């Protein structure tokens, strides 16, 4: 990726953060977002996250394949299911991946 691309994405990400964080407080006063609008917004995250989990767990450079990081991601999924703290999940996933690469 080129440096220009990276800086452009940073600028756009910063912009969307400012806009999304500022929109509610700028609009409120005493009003609330209509319930249907809230439901739609809330629904957006899960499909995107699922896609990111799957592609990242299988990505290896430009290929998709099962590797050590896939095992780490599976362990992470189990820990999330067991309601482990985010730091524990992240560290264990990395440790398992690292260990499998060390011995594999």
């Amino acid at each position: 990726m080129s440096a220009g691309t990276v800086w452009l994405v940073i600028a756009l990400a910063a912009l969307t953060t400012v806009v999304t964080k500022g929109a509610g407080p700028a609009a409120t006063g005493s009003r609330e977002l209509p319930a249907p609008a809230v439901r739609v917004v809330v629904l957006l995250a899960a499909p995107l996250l699922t896609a990111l989990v799957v592609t990242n767990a299988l990505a290896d450079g430009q290929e998709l394949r099962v590797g050590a990081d896939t095992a780490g991601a599976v362990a992470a999924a189990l820990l999330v299911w067991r309601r482990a703290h985010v730091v524990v999940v992240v560290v264990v996933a990395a440790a398992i991946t690292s260990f499998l690469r060390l011995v594999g």
Partner: protein
Amino acid sequence: MPAPERTFRDGARAGLPYAGASGVLALSFGVVATDVGVPAVAAIVMSAVVFAGSAQFASIAILAAGGGVGAAAAAAALMNSRFVPMGFAVGPSLKGSRVRRALEGQVMVDSSWAMAANGDGSFDRRYMFGHTAVQYVAWVLGTTLGVVVPTLDARALGLDAVFPAFFLTILGGELRDRHQRQGDRTAGRAGARRVGRGADRAAHAGARHRAHRRRRTGHRGSAVVSAGAVVSAGSVVRAGAVVRTGTVLSAGAARRGAPS
């Protein structure tokens, strides 16, 4: 009788454990970002001006996978979309003109938003500022540490598994929360009581308040509140959903297996 408003200092103190978690994640972000080709300065600047872990990880992951600027920026925007309902919830508790409220809203992050909630629809803004402030420092410092430590081999350290692991924790919170939204109107209070194990007292009390509020206000209130649960890095906003999920799973197991 309303409790006294919690101060900036209270928020900063309560935010420290979350700052620790943020620091670890930020360090991972710094290492992984530079590893996939993001310039070191760009990674630090991104943490300083975006300051939204999921948006940063998502957009960089897409760039690293060969995605374009549009896809990367769209992913960041989608990740941040949760701030819209969160902002509507916190807006009335901020101060001043619309512009000033929008600026104060920039301070909102998941855990500070969730813990600043009083349970009656209001938020302690100074507490939220303090809670966020310590996390901001940890986020930028952690990223800096991640990019300046030159000998880290992200692949050997297994840090490419950090992306999916981090997203899984967010997804887990989201799915539990949705389960709650679809779910019953009785599990909330008991769930909030039991989920406090391991969480600090403030978070526990917050969850209980929110569970109450969900029960009182029905779907609309719960949708706004639960938007914040999507990415809370920790055990804050779990409330009744956790226990209910466990109940459903064990009930299912019982039906499949042992006679009961």
